[in-house]
């Protein structure tokens, strides 16, 4: 592909032919505001990313405008700023201004640009939507009143996860994002990957787990690896007060590149299940009955060590066996097989890879 050269805000920039202005600017370190654009996927719908291109009468949506030789582009002229303010004001004219309690606050695109452009409210007094909160699936809420119809969730569903569960439905004021026949997602082809939630720039799609669990800026992020399947997706756990609040993934994650499945994004709450074991137990009832009493670690481990030693000296090393785990870490598997071989003295160690 040919390389073209042009200027953005007086800066000389080179880019591959076919690149959009927005992407070219980004690689040159110039961030153009945008709401509907997602990496590699552009619709030109929100018109926040407009710029002035010399020789063009109208402002150009930079996410869909291809670069060309000798273009002269300005990203922050008075005209551009005015247009952007207009876009935000229009959006706010039909948006609940409840940022103080909105779960998205601190990570919301609309809030960010309203702040940056100094838009405090709206001069446009228009009709407002009053939708009830959509609470029909176990993983996330959809609040249509906060939806700016940017279409990112639709792109995420169709072009990232290839599901096509949702799309724009109806026209005009009644336009909204919905599954076919406006059914609940549970009755659609939705696979609950949550890609739509991850891509939504506003509080229209929000994980249930995070509701009332902490403000965005108070969440501590820890990068780790998913505990379910062998793909090994990178997870970013958002944590507050010793509890996981939500799970996301970085766009540049090495294996999964910004995508997750339902188990990785939403299936982690087993960690906080009330059914978790919390103390060592020693059997009191019959075997298989499941009756136990709590014990201290010392008591439990002493008993284990004594019994294993007894069996080993009575019946030999090979009368002991161990199942290690494909769920545990490498370090734990290594230690278990070392324990079995070096301490118990047998090679009777296996795990369920076969299953």
């Amino acid at each position, binding site marked *: 592909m040919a390389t073209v050269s042009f200027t953005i805000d007086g800066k000389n920039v080179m880019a591959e032919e076919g690149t959009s202005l927005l992407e070219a600017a980004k690689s040159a370190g110039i961030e153009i505001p945008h709401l509907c654009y997602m990496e590699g996927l552009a619709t030109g719908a929100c018109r926040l990313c407009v710029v002035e291109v010399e020789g063009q009468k109208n402002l150009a949506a930079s996410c869909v405008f291809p670069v060309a030789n000798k273009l002269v582009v300005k990203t922050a002229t008075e005209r551009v700023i005015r247009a952007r303010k207009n876009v935000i004001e229009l959006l706010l004219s039909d948006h609940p201004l409840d940022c103080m309690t909105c779960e998205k606050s601190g990570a919301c695109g609309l809030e960010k640009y309203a702040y940056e452009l100094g838009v405090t409210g709206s001069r446009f007094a228009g009709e407002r939507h009053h939708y009830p909160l959509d609470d029909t699936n176990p993983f996330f809420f959809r609040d249509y009143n906060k939806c700016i119809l940017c279409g990112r969730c639709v792109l995420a569903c169709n072009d990232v996860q290839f599901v096509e569960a949702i799309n724009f439905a109806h026209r005009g004021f009644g336009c909204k994002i919905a599954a076919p026949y406006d059914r609940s997602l549970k009755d659609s082809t939705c696979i609950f990957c949550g890609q739509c939630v991850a891509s939504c720039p506003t509080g229209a799609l929000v994980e249930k787990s995070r509701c009332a669990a902490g403000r965005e800026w108070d969440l501590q992020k820890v990068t*780790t690896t998913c505990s379910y399947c062998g793909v090994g997706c990178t997870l970013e756990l958002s944590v507050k007060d010793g509890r996981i609040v939500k799970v996301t993934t970085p766009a540049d994650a090495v294996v999964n590149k910004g995508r997750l499945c339902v188990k990785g994004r939403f299936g982690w*709450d087993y960690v906080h299940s009330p059914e978790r074991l919390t103390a060592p*137990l020693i059997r009191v009832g019959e075997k298989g009955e499941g009756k136990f009493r709590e014990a201290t670690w010392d008591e439990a481990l002493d008993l284990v060590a004594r019994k294993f030693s007894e069996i080993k000296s009575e019946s030999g090393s090979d009368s002991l066996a161990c*199942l290690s785990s494909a769920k545990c870490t490498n370090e734990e598997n290594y230690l278990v097989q070392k324990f079995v071989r070096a*301490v118990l003295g047998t*090679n009777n160690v296996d795990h369920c890879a*076969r*299953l």
Partner: protein
Amino acid sequence: MAGLATTFGSGAMTSSISELRDTDCIFVIGSNTSENHPIIGLEVMEGVRHGKTKLIVADPRRIRMVDFASLWLRQKPGTDVALLNGLLNIIILENLVDTEFIAGRTEGFEEVKKLVAEYTPETTSRITGVPVDDLKEAARLYAKSPKACILFAMGITQHTTGTDNVMAIANLAMATGHVGKEGSGVCPLRGQNNVQGACDMGALPNVLPGYQPVTDAAARAKLEQAWGTSLPDKPGLTLMEMMAAAEHGKVRGMYIMGEEPAINDPNSTHVRAALKKLDFLVVQNIFLGETGKYADVVLPGASFAEKDGTFTNTERRIQRVRQAIPALGQCKPDWVITSGIASRMGYPMNYRHPSEIMEEIAGVTPIYGGVHYDRLDKSGLQWPCRSREDAGTKYLHKDSFSRGKGKFMPVAYKEAFELPDAEYPIIFSTGRILYHWHGGTMSRQSKGLAEIAPEAMVEISPVDAAKLKLADGDIAELASRRGKIQAKVKVTDESPDGVAFMTFHFTEAPANLLTVDALDPVAKIPELKVCAIKMEKVWAKPASGE
């Protein structure tokens, strides 16, 4: 993956996940990729959607990947070897083999050629039920593509002929030169998050860390020195053999960490009997589970969010696990618990952090020789990674196979261990669904996942439903020669006629009470995919509406 260890010298996935979106042809067989390895499924779809990749799916069920396929081969369950041999025969007949690769990189081709000659397109079609034209088209597409990958999973390995299936796949890849190159490879997709790592670490009865055989005196000597003890030289018992030995009183004490054999094992009645018979059972897990009920001592482990460590994914990538929250209650990471037991038995283990254990692993495991925590932060490392200077390995068998020459293995088609008959006319097959994982130990404790997929379903085709007078939502009793269970019926044209499919995530309807514990003779993998059952309605869903 015993089959690949024989033919290539290593059982691991040869390619990297990221190569999949850049290959010309992907052949998926015995892998419900979008359900069991969702993000790998997406990588495949990515290539297909961008017009780069042509997809062939061989599966008795109409899985979601079929929507993206150029070609769908709907073979009868249990006929994979015949299908693969038949495809190879067409490739040979039409001169589409890579003669240079066969001559330079492999051995044993002539015998395979002789054997697969029996699998004429017509014979293959008769055994598998796949039309001759589709067989030819698939063979040509796979062989002629400049780069091609084969993806497979438990649908291939969970048969009495599982090892044969895998070797037949390896034959196909070697004959066409589709292995050991960027974008071409043989990809067994490993199930659980760290199956690969557990194998790498030697949690297997016949190998030490890094697949060094326990029978290899030199390997043992090295570890004996590192560990300051002498090591047993006789291979140990596999999981199924352990359970049998326990039932016969030969194994008296057992230590089970993070596993649920009482649900996950085929023929789980036997497993329960074995566990009950033990003199002393220690279960270490995050939930009590079914297995825990048989324990004498239960030790509470920490979840993945409560500890540091590493997992190795299906493409051999060692990645960090990082503690995000404090351990619940008195829970402790498994490595701390195991160290505690060892120390009390007179063998002190005084690790302060998993990174110290990894340093030891690197010292005794050549393929992990260059793995250190400070190198894992951003994107981990793919083994083999032998030294600090080694950047890791994207794809295996580049210039030569791990065993030297790739070994063609002639494998003949054998019928499944148990076939349907007049009394048990339906083929029963098990698998997983997207929303749950294995015995459901974790996933069923997730409220959302449990709500979306709350109960066991048995899937049958509309034709069978009509024959059995079953409707969507009815409850049916399923009986095999070994046991019976009840489950809700789902009528779907995803299922082929004559086959009932069920998941094994639900303890109240344990599908594995029905399955046979006939084992693959080499890999000792049980036949979970095919057995014979009968079905009968026990409860009819009331007509709804009015």
